[in-house]
């Protein structure tokens, strides 16, 4: 479980890139890539090690209003868990 006050940062090996062919963002890492949906792309861009999980949720809840905040929090947590599982993100204290 990722703590709300931790600061997620993309792993050194991962890099975001816009893909003109599909108009989606890709998260690239050695030999692979993940196609990001728009929400995932917004989250990934905020994984800079500066913002806490809490702050990311706040920021996106504002942007996605009137979507309920709980929904946004669930999306953020589940995407961060996917990244952590693949070693693409570290949650720093």
């Amino acid at each position, binding site marked *: 479980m990722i703590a709300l006050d931790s600061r997620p940062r993309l792993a050194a090996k991962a890099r975001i890139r816009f*893909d003109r062919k599909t108009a989606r963002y890709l998260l690239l890492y*050695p030999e692979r890539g993940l196609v990001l949906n728009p929400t995932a792309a917004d989250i990934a861009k905020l994984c800079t090690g500066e913002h806490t999980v809490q702050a990311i949720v706040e920021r996106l809840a504002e942007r996605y209003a009137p979507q309920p905040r709980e929904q946004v929090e669930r999306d953020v947590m589940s995407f961060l868990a996917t990244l952590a599982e693949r070693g693409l993100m570290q949650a720093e204290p």
Partner: protein
Amino acid sequence: MSDAYRPYTLVAELTYRCPLRCVYCSNPLDYARHTDGLATADWLRVFREAEELGVVQLHLTGGEPLLRDDLEALIEGARALDLYTNLITSGIPLGRERLARFRSLGLDNVQVSVQDVAASSSDRIAGSRAFERKLEVARWVKELGFPLTLNVVLHRENLDHVEQIVALAETLSADRLELANTQYVGWALTNRRALLPTAAELDRARRASAAAHARLRGKMEILFVMPDYYSEFPKACMDGWGRRFIVVSPDGLALPCHAAHTLPGLSFENVKDRHLEAIWGQSGAFNAFRGEAWMPEPCRSCERRALDFGGCRCQAYLLTKNAAATDPACSLSPDHGLIEAARQEALSAHSGDFEYRAPRPGVRK
């Protein structure tokens, strides 16, 4: 072309030259005939054309890419195109300052190969004293802030060392460990008798790898590639012919895979003569094994044909002399007996003499 045929990865084989002589090298046996025919500007144009086609990943490889003294310019050009740029290297010859330059030019990832966990056994496979130096390079990679991929090609002489290999990768703080069983093309096929393991050896290694994979989840990515000699069905070689990869050889041939230019009857076009998009979309060689029309039985009516595309064309040719045959590695192939015979041989063969990679007399120009 439809999205079914979109290249994501360009494999730039910058040179076939290499200071090492690995007994499993996947470069073609006649590699010395393919000289470095592309200048810096040619490669940079190829990168641009590839990116326009949809490529987002670039592998700078060879041979040994460090032997190109324009590697700096190539890395810089690749990053200007926002390509995820991966240097695949033996680590030799390389100094720390040059590696630091690569870092400041934006190189994304460095993949270093070692052959085993001790100098004597590793150097025996590489045909050269290289092990200690490779470890030093791997340490620099991490010190300079790069992600590190450690690549170890597996065969009967090191397959029992998977646990020690994982420990070495942990010591080096590798981000990714590739435990790739030898693919029996190129020099590896020449040396198959001495390299092919038994099923029991393979099974132990696979279990050791799976345990490490579970233990290190989220910390180190571990990839174990089965040899298709021991799989029921073949792998989707290169994710299918002309679907996801473009390989460009040192002399400029655009290829669907590393060894495609060893197949007879196909003529591959040179990136110096034609735009990559036209080669990708229109050349006969790229279209030769796309889709299903070329498939023989049993592939043609097999439900796995959209998953593995009938396996490896090079393996089919090397073993049956017919590039359009079902990959003999497939248990349904009428030629599967060739694979079973090799497995049988592995039960009795003990590691023997190697033929090291070298320019072959008569094929060097």
